[in-house]
């Protein structure tokens, strides 16, 4: 398995029905130009283990006390993971485990992979995050397949259970960027329902109108994407109504969520998910926060030194555990921020914000932070925006091209928050942007989802 993978490796258990569905998705008259190849890579043994893992899942945490499994997890990681073994004996309390940052992982991810993990079937998910530290996250086909169990858990909150099986398309993952990794596959755990990862950028299609025709023809049960690709989806002349939209990777504004819900008549799930640990939480509008999904992921909020904070205090989200057995984490600083709370037996992240806080000086000389900016703009259906404060105190609001129509309302909302300041609007290119930046002397800090 050192060269180009074969289809047998991509779809080890593919049936004739699955093969036909792959051909249908790939060769449909309105299909896009699929530029890549990938697959589920699940052997029959893998599939059995994935299903067993799903059956074994316990409920997500209800409170903030460190769970019983954590003590063994700490000991296990200190014994098997080179980075931690070098730190000496495992501390008796999780609080005494030093928090690690993404930069530390990115510096040499190999030191975070357990010694006894077989490497033959290791895969990676590449992430640049927004801190600029490119990283290959070690993973395994079983780990990738385990996502579905948590998607099901998130969907169940909205009264939805995936049902599509053989011959139908279970999920369509949409991107809107150049370049974009595109391919087709099937999901063995769903009786080989189809999976198509497509790019809505017109450059990937023979005819831009084929985008809507293809989605209408394939009738995916769910569509997964990010706010940028969903904003593009809104512009397509689609008849098909999926059962739900799954949004990941960036902050989803209330305005865009409302526009999508109205247009497609289905719930829009805002998932907080990371390559390093998978789906962490799903936003529940009734509770006003992201409800935690994983039973074996301990979530803390910490201060700048990585010390755990009490419920209700705002800080950096720190995670331990997770279902990625290739990267067992201990007090991993996600770079995202929020507050923790327990409501009605559920554990929530409130005010989830991507990455480190940035302060802006308003027109009255007062400091405002990025959370306030997000709040000020959240009612607008912005696909993506960025805000930069120049050294002279003026602001530059970056808007995705499709959102430029909202520029007037966005600037007005910012004036409401920031008072008399100079704000110019600039169009953004597609792709990820540092969401918040300031060039005001030592206040310069950045990063965005």
């Amino acid at each position, binding site marked *: 398995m050192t060269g180009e993978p074969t289809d047998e490796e991509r779809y080890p258990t593919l049936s004739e029905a699955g093969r036909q569905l792959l051909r249908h998705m790939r060769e449909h008259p309105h299909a896009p130009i699929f530029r890549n190849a990938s697959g589920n*890579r699940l052997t029959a043994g893998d599939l059995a283990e994935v299903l067993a893992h799903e059956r074994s899942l316990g409920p997500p945490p209800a409170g903030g006390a460190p769970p019983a499994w954590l003590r063994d997890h700490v000991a296990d990681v200190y014994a098997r993971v080179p980075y931690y073994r070098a730190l000496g004996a495992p501390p008796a309390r999780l609080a005494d485990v030093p928090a690690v940052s993404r930069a530390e992982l990115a510096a040499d991810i*190999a030191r975070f992979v357990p010694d006894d993990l077989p490497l033959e079937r290791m895969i990676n998910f590449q992430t640049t995050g927004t801190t600029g530290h490119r990283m290959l996250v070690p993973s395994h086909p079983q780990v*990738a397949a385990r996502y579905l169990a948590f998607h099901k858990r998130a969907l169940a909150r909205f009264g939805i259970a995936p049902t599509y099986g053989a011959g139908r398309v279970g999920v369509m993952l949409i991107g809107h960027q150049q370049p974009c990794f595109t391919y087709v596959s099937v999901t063995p755990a769903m009786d080989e329902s189809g999976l198509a*990862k497509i790019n809505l950028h017109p450059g990937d299609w023979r005819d831009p109108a084929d985008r809507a025709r293809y989605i209408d023809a394939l009738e995916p049960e769910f569509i997964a994407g990010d706010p940028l690709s969903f904003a593009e989806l809104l512009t397509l002349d689609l008849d098909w109504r999926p059962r739900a939209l799954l949004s990941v990777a960036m902050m989803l504004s209330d305005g865009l969520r409302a526009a999508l819900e109205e247009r497609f008549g289905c719930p829009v799930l805002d998932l907080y998910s990371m390559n390093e640990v998978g789906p962490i939480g799903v936003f529940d509008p009734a509770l006003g926060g992201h409800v935690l999904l994983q039973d074996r992921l301990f979530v803390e909020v910490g201060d700048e030194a990585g010390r755990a904070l009490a419920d209700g205090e705002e800080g950096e989200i720190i995670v331990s555990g997770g279902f990625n057995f290739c990267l067992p984490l201990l007090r991993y600083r996600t770079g995202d921020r929020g507050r923790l709370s327990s409501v009605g037996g559920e554990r929530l992240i409130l005010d989830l914000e991507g990455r480190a806080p940035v302060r802006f000086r308003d027109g009255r000389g007062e400091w405002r932070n990025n959370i306030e900016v997000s709040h000020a703009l959240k009612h607008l259906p912005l696909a993506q925006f960025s805000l930069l404060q120049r050294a002279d105190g003026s602001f530059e609001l970056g808007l995705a091209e499709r959102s430029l129509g909202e520029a007037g309302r966005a600037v007005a909302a910012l004036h409401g928050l920031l008072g008399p300041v100079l704000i110019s609007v600039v169009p953004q290119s597609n792709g990820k942007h540092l969401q918040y930046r300031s060039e005001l002397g030592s206040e310069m800090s950045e990063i965005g989802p």
Partner: protein
Amino acid sequence: MTTFTDIGPPLPALLRRLAETPADFLGEPRIGGLGDVVVPALLGDVLEELGLDPAPELLRVFAPDRARREDRNWFQLAMIAAWLLADEWLAERHPAAGPLADLLTRGLRELAGQVRADLTVSDPDRREELARTFLARLGYRPEGESAAAAADRLTMISAAERRRLIEASRAAEQRAREVREALARKAAAESADKWTRE
């Protein structure tokens, strides 16, 4: 510098004391806001009990301005050494300040590079290594042993551990290379299906 000039306590007594190290000396050293044992305070108390007036700069070594998580093992060894220092036999002899400082800084720091602190309590060989290092750095040899025998035994027990460490370190390097190669394979880069992509 290591010498074996004076006759120290019997080794079994020191080993027994190590094996019985109380929990207070096995806690988490305070480093960068983590941990609750303030090592300078612990050492200061013990040294004062010995009738010594510890130099502030010696104690400050264990409360650095910049936290270094790799110091943790060394600080933990210093805590265990504090328990050995509090032994009655030693208290009666008032160890000299110079060798004591050398033990706590250079001696234990070197040892921390090759021995996990908790094992100097729980593992017989590592217990002996700490006990012998401790005595040697203070200028003693175990009662009933010649200077040459004490030196040989310490060299032997340390060298064996160093050899093991070098082999482990070589294996770790090899493993890290293999992980990096596995991650870089084309098949790994092609990845596998997830229902959402972050």
